[in-house]
């Protein structure tokens, strides 16, 4: 189907089904139950799942295939957001021109940065991209927010004001929309004890993500993708065969930059506000983590990683001491208090600590990511079975 082999078709269908049914899948617990706080089926979080999924898919095309570790991809996300909000300010709240411009601007920006950074490889590349990203952050935060030439609105963040031009302004459409269908409109379905929310913004982002996922499968399976893998395996050797690898790596860099820009544009389309903190290097670190956690160089990994990180970010930061006490109230008091005391450091405000630990554990023990871990477990089980089968005839 769609020029994909059987396995990729399976993966692709899996992603489609999960994203389409996400409002059900992410909402397994009844609304009134104690477990409801583990539900992820509300629009804001689901939107972030797919948008950061796009970001990570794009990052994976660069890092997973070529092995170039960029520490500055958040810059492209930020640029995309700014471009989208400017489109809202100048044209109208329709998201199509905003998304198109954010992809184009992020593409040009990444072409420029990639052209400079890709002259070096290895850790120099990482540090160069890091320096560029920090510079972009500083530029967006302070340089371009002076009164004479205010492009980013500095600390406040860029947003649409009532007196903005908006050439194709449509009355009573004051939030981002797709030809009149508002992004923040939600249809609620109540089934028994469950409330399911179907949000327009989520489905628009999901459709974009599915398309982008398809593009990434095609890139992975194309001769171009093969070339990128060759760069990762042994670039020196590739150079010795007389092949100039830079156009290929640059193309990968620009493609991943455009993915990031698209994600940034979508973020702005869900909430028309763009701030400089989106460009900070910790944000770049987060997308690296998503990709690694899921499994760099795999198709499904980055999407899984993005969902995983965003889910835990959201859920863990919501768990405060009161919630913990409510959980452990059946235990003896001393045990309850000591458990709460221990978990207190890792939840709520301390969830960054959990994130850091998770990062280390994944890199140390599971460099292939979650998918690799799943494969290893499957192989271990199958291996045991195979051994059993092999033994029986010998007896």
């Amino acid at each position, binding site marked *: 189907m769609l020029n994909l082999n059987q396995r990729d078709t399976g993966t692709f269908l899996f992603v489609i089904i999960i994203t389409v049914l996400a409002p059900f899948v992410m909402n397994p617990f009844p609304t009134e139950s104690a477990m409801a706080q583990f539900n992820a089926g509300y629009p804001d979080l689901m939107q972030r799942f797919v948008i950061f999924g796009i970001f990570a898919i794009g990052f994976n095309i660069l890092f997973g295939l070529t*092995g170039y570790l960029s520490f500055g991809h958040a810059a492209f996300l930020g640029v995309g957001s700014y471009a989208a909000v400017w489109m809202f300010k100048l044209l109208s709240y329709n998201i199509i021109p905003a998304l198109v411009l954010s992809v184009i601007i992020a593409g040009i920006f990444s072409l420029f940065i990639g052209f400079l950074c890709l002259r070096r490889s290895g850790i120099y590349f990482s540090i160069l991209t890091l320096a560029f990203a920090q*510079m972009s952050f500083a530029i967006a935060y302070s340089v371009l927010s002076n009164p004479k030439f205010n492009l980013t609105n500095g600390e406040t963040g860029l947003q649409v004001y009532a007196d903005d031009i908006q050439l194709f302004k449509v009355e009573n459409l004051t939030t981002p929309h797709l030809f009149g269908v508002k992004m923040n409109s939600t249809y609620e379905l109540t089934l028994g004890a469950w409330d399911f929310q179907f949000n327009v913004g989520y489905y628009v982002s999901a459709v974009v993500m599915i398309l982008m996922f398809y593009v990434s499968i095609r890139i992975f399976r194309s001769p171009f993708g093969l070339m990128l893998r060759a760069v990762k395996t042994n670039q020196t050797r590739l150079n010795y065969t007389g092949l100039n690898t830079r156009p290929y790596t640059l193309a990968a860099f620009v493609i991943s930059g455009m993915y990031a820009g698209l994600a940034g544009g979508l973020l702005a389309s869900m909430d028309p506000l763009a701030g400089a903190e989106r460009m900070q*290097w910790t944000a770049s670190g987060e997308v690296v983590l998503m990709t690694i956690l899921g499994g760099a160089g795999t198709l499904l990994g980055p999407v899984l990683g993005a969902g995983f990180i965003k889910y835990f970010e959201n859920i863990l930061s919501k768990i405060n001491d009161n919630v913990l006490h409510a959980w452990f109230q059946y235990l003896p008091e001393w045990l309850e208090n000591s458990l709460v005391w221990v978990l207190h450091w890792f939840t709520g405000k301390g969830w960054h600590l959990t994130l*850091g630990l998770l990062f*280390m554990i994944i890199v140390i023990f599971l460099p292939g990511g979650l998918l690799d871990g799943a494969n290893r477990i499957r192989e271990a089980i199958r291996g045991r079975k195979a051994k059993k089968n092999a033994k029986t005839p010998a007896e």
Partner: protein
Amino acid sequence: MDALLLQILNGLDKGSAYALIALGLTLIFGTLGVVNFAHGALFMIGAFCSVTLNKILNLSTVTLDATQKDFLGNPLKVKTPYVESWFGEAAGQSIIDWSVPLAIIFAIPVMLAIGVIMERGLIKHFYKRPHADQILVTFGLAIVLQEVVKAFFGANPIQTPAPDALDGVMDLGGAIGLQLSYPVWRITYFFFAMAVIGGVFAFLRFTTFGMVVRAGMADRETVGLLGINIDKKFTIMFGIAAAVAGLAGVMYTPINPPNYHWGMDFLVLSFVVVVVGGMGSLPGAVLAGFLLGILESFASTTWATTTIPGINQIIIYLVAIIILLVRPRGLMGRAGVMEE
């Protein structure tokens, strides 16, 4: 002329901090070949060693003094730090006053231990892994260390005053007929940094241990074949690098109250410094540290910021990018070290 000199002086203290951190980073990179993203966190931990010592020294017994009243009319609570009751009032007070310099003594063993534990416990397992993995695991470690410090000390900056004798402003220009007043502590910091840098260089240059380490930096395998346990020596060098970063942090606290995200703030900049100076070149790291510090201070003048707004925020990155593209091995890097 005064303005020019003042800007150079202003750059020196930040430049000293950059130079010290970059020196440690280069030591680690040159010896172990590891890219340590947690090095900024070591600087931050050093700063919090100073905070911790200050808090420990200020531990006090509270007694009620019935002869005096506080503003509510209750008996006044008099706090007597333990050190005052042990060593007498005058000695105790001066110990508390000098807590930041004293923290140097406290921080050296702590930082050495942290460095050695870090190397043996974590970094050791990453020698054979790609640079990307080293970057990622130390990045994770940096987040963890930062969050642990935040959990203990809170998110707000903590004031740690310099000793009274070194607090205040002195006139430097008197001898040459210029108006130059400059905070004493910053000068102290500069000389301290020079002493530490000199110490590290002398240690590497004039001791047998240093000679072996330098040989190991040049050709690890051969040194190993000569029957020297180079791994052990490198572990100690990691500890020393951690201590250098820690000391930079300890002495920086009176200049800028420390908070938990110092590590990240200084890390990116000191990486840039290392790259500008030349990966693996110790003199390069020091030189680039001071150069970039001074450059940053020139870019922060009103003249510069009105000409190009925000130039002080981006100048270092701009210079780094230009240098990397024009002279890829950095200012003093040797040919062939980590060029591709």
